[in-house]
């Protein structure tokens, strides 16, 4: 308490000028987030990008990706070291870091926060991240349908071991060479003890360990106002003295707000991709591709069983024209986003547009019976448009009969999960950590987290396991690439395009643009 008071005083004496620091300081920016307002800030219980975006300012990760080199660098961690098999990882923290309440940041904070998240009955959203850790299953016993999960007697994962004040180790269920990379995920942020004791009480007054803290109270429906926290001793502190996050649920409205000059930074919504350069001629930036987008073939529908048919579909699509329609997009030539280490140009053999070849392949596959249904998400402004574009190409180039079904995203997902979805759907994937493994495992491994097509190939699973066990990063990549080849040949997902995002920024700031981590308003430089 005394300490935090001292901090407040010192921040006043720091020449921040107006003392209140409510966004009027020399270096302040207002960032628009096109989403419904956050209801709480807790990175461990939030996996949506708005929450993560705010958490990035308030919490500091163990490691991060260097925006200039793409290498993993330590932030809160002093070192992250795997054992020989990559099954047990030892994390050593830097000394001297504290939470914003003044308490020192210790290994125990990490271990306890993680255990809290891994406890299934808490229903925290990043629970799934820990499923790789030894002992996770004891905290998440199977629950019969309709029953309420009870808190388990075991409160801690056996894989997490406190070694000393600043060191702990993580033992995984199976070897996983990419685990070190995953530690940059903000969903692994530490919570201080007082928050861990009663998380609900701190929903609107989070205590972070990052460069910014809440400026005053944050009540429901208000902007999130952050000011620089002087107690932050880690590297990578952004330049801004204060940052305001403003939530504007309608993306087009947010865009208009920017044009009217009331916010400093905004995402360009898909409907404005063609106009943003003329709307804000001096204030736009584009990032590298943020994710890859696919057309999902349902493995449960026998009509899609023949790989040749899937290749035919793929080759009937003019990816160049489609990418132009999407805007700021690159036609896909593989399953992985182009800026990943391990990306190979032209990995996909069936991704070039060739209507004649496509038709021939379809014939060889025995044709397609019945109308082809294409599902699209009605909550997305462009869902219907993209579906129609794909549908038109399949209809005109393959002579298929096509129909469309617009549904809410959640319904499409549920139908797909229960193997009842009729026809094609769209999907997208962005990595949580910069490894091509984070594309292949979730989407193509049998029962992967994001295996939308219900695809399963033991050969591919085996290759992935080899890669996970390979400690040498370069060798691991080569093994993962074999897995990508298998997936491309089977083609449960047809790669469509990778998309860059565009952003508008005011003349006051220059956002950081990195080939490796994209565009960041948080790390903007001020003019």
């Amino acid at each position, binding site marked *: 308490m005394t300490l935090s008071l001292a901090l407040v005083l010192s921040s006043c004496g720091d020449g921040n000028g107006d003392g209140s620091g409510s966004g009027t300081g020399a270096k302040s920016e207002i960032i628009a987030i096109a989403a419904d307002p956050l209801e709480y800030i807790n990175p461990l219980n939030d*996996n949506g*990008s708005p929450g993560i975006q705010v958490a990035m300012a308030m919490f500091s990760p163990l490691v991060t990706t260097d925006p200039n080199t793409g290498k993993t660098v330590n932030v809160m961690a002093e070192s992250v070291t795997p054992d020989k098999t990559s099954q047990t990882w030892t994390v050593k923290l830097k000394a001297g870091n504290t939470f914003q309440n003044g308490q020192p940041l210790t290994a125990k904070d990490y271990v306890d926060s993680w255990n809290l998240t891994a406890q299934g009955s808490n229903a925290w959203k990043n629970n799934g991240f820990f499923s790789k850790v030894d002992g996770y299953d004891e905290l998440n016993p199977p629950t019969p349908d309709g029953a309420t999960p009870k808190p388990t007697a075991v409160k801690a994962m056996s894989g997490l071991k406190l070694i000393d004040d600043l060191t702990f180790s993580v033992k995984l269920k199976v070897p996983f060479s990419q685990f070190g990379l995953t530690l940059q995920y903000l969903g692994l942020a530490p919570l201080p003890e007082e928050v861990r004791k009663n998380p609900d009480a701190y929903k609107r007054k989070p205590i972070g360990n990052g460069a910014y803290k809440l400026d005053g109270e944050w009540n429901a429906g208000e902007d999130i106002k952050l000011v620089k926290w002087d107690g932050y001793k880690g590297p990578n502190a952004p330049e801004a003295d204060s940052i305001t996050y403003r939530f504007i649920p309608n993306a087009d409205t947010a865009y208009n707000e920017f044009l009217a000059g009331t916010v400093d930074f905004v995402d360009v919504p898909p409907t404005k991709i063609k106009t943003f350069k003329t709307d804000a001629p001096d204030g736009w930036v584009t990032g590298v591709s943020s994710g890859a987008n696919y057309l999902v073939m349902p493995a449960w529908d026998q009509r899609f069983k023949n790989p040749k048919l899937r290749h035919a579909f793929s080759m009937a699509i003019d990816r160049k024209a489609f990418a132009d329609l999407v805007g700021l997009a690159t036609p896909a030539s593989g399953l992985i986003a182009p800026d990943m280490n391990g990306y190979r140009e032209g990995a996909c053999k069936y991704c070039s547009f060739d209507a004649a070849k496509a038709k021939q392949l379809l014939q060889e596959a025995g044709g397609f019976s019945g109308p082809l249904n294409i599902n699209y998400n009605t909550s997305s402004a462009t869902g219907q448009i993209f579906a129609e574009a794909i549908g038109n190409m399949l209809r005109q180039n393959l002579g298929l009969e096509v129909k469309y079904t617009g549904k*809410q995203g959640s319904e499409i997902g549920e139908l797909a999960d229960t193997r009842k979805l009729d026809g094609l759907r769209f999907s997208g994937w962005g990595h949580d950590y910069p490894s091509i493994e984070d594309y292949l495992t979730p989407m193509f491994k049998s029962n992967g987290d994001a295996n939308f097509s219900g695809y399963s190939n033991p050969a591919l699973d085996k290759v992935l396991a080899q890669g996970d066990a390979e400690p040498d990063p370069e060798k691991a990549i080569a093994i993962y690439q074999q897995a990508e080849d298998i997936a491309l040949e089977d083609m449960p997902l047809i790669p469509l395009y990778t998309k860059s995002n565009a952003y508008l920024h005011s003349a006051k700031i220059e956002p950081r643009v990195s080939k490796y981590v994209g565009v960041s308003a948080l790390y903007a430089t001020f003019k």
Partner: protein
Amino acid sequence: MIRFVARRVLAAIPIGLIVTLGVFALVFAMPGDPLRELAGDKPIPAAVLAAKRAQYHLDDPFIVQYLLSMKDILTGNFGTTFAGADIADQLRLRIPVTLKLTLLANAFQWTLGLFFGIYAGFKRNGLVDKSLLLATLVLLAVPGLVAYFAAQYLFGVELKWFPVSGVLEGFPRSYLLPALVIGLLGFAGLARLMRTSIVETVNADFVKTARAKGLGEQRVLWRHILPNALLPVVTFIGIDLAGMFGGAIITESIFNLPGLGQFMFQAIKLKEGGVVVLLSTLAFVSFILINLAVDILYGVLDPRVRHV
């Protein structure tokens, strides 16, 4: 009077039950898993889903869920949304927004509508009358969507006369533009109604009597024509006001006004039956109250239907 009010309120209760049960059933029957929409960008483990489901009673049978929701509503113990927002908080924030928008829009609509309607009807076939009829035809023919987008772009983005969206500039500045557009669109209907009503009344025999009494035109208009011509208009205003409270979903979305309409829309998308029913109940109660008020007002204006 008290008996009249009591009878109306009692009659409203079964309707309210059917409305809430019906709305809840509809939301319940909507396909899609409510928690999945909430999941964000990444999949959620089964254990987490099960825990969430239990927390929001989603694993209970339909009727239990409904009764639990009704209990929450009746006891004022609203709980939180699936996304974790405190519902009472939300109502506290959102009701004023919707009220401000509705009242301002209605203020525009009534002032303009009554004024032009009275003037045009009284000076029938005059220049004002003819231009009003044309203007209202055009206004009624413009789809609301067109009007909202056009107004936001023209007056907010290009001319910068009004804030583009949001409520940051407070009342009334933030509400002026959307209220003006809603008001204008509603004005067309109200002005036409008022005009027709005046025209009908101008020809009534008692107006001849009033003129034969040697009264001035202004007195004839304000004392004799208007009180009678207002009767059908009052009914309309009641319907209109009751409807507006149900939520200006599209306006609130385009102008980013965090009111009840957006709340309702989100709740529907997330299949939050409890919230949808709560908001429907709110809309229903206000509907009943406003209609009751209108009926009482009608009785004050028209002695023939006075409720003793």
